[in-house]
């Protein structure tokens, strides 16, 4: 079975040197979605109001087979109630 590498950009690039053996490109895409969602789930509450997460999946030959971006954008309203 082929090996896929999942590079993530979350406040800096993080390269996957080891990779994961998966059934094929469909599973690799599905794993990228779930990885991005998990990272966002953990890091959005800890981070700033503007945050972009990117994942890129490479195959064994180094070709990119999938790229995904998740953007978090929180905007505080101008009018804020004062107690």
């Amino acid at each position, binding site marked *: 079975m082929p090996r896929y590498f*999942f590079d993530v950009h979350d406040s800096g690039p993080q390269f996957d040197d080891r990779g994961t053996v998966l059934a094929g490109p469909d599973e690799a895409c599905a794993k990228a979605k779930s990885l991005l969602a998990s990272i966002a789930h953990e890091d959005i509450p800890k981070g700033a109001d503007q945050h972009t997460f990117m994942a890129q999946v490479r195959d064994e030959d180094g070709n990119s087979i999938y790229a995904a971006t998740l953007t978090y954008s929180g905007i505080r309203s101008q009018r804020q109630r004062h107690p």
Partner: protein
Amino acid sequence: MSSAPDDHSLDMLIRKLESIATLSDEERQAIRSLPAKTRVLQPRQDIVRDGDKPSQCCLILDGWAYRYKLIGGGRRQIFSFHVAGDIPDLQSLRLHTMDHSLATLTQATVAFLPHESLRDLTTRFPSLTAILWRDTLIDAAVFREWMTGMGRRDAFERIAHLFCELYLKLQAVGLAQSYRCPLPITQVDLGDALGLSNVHVNRVLQEMRGRGLITLHSGTLVIEAWDELMRACEFDPTYLHLEKRAAA
């Protein structure tokens, strides 16, 4: 297969129970004389399945096993990992229908202990009943810790916590030392145990390596920075209730 009151295969059980309690000579002798059928099982082989009504318990003598449940869509939750000395299906002695499955993770040597003999042992030695109860309570304590992890800890903390737990459990029965232990668990297994995808597990393991906390090579885990790993996941070994907690 052998019926073996004298081959000392049951010493593994004695070693395990002595990691959580103190046994008398008489109790040790009674355990040694349990009838045990020893078998060698292949990796990934079910030992008992959800819904079974077993008439024996399974003592692990060598290798690893795990308890799990399957739900729709092929999703699997692993509840626990087991090593030599454990009786992962001890509950079947009192709860007659299995509500989950038990399988080998690696090739494993196991001893099957008839319920009848275990019941007889516990009737004759209430003190052993108390120790087996203690073991069951510790099992539940481990579940509480896993629940806390899955509900509240992030991926890094979950994996770090499991590594600390497994190391101490293995060390307590003499299967690990110097912060080095066998870890025949795949990333898929780790993910299914901790509610993570294998790709996410892989990413966290690389982060742990990158921070110099662990190395993981051909089935051996080396914890390079025990104190830091413990701190990172707020690991407190109290819940393992180990009687003899060796230094390393």
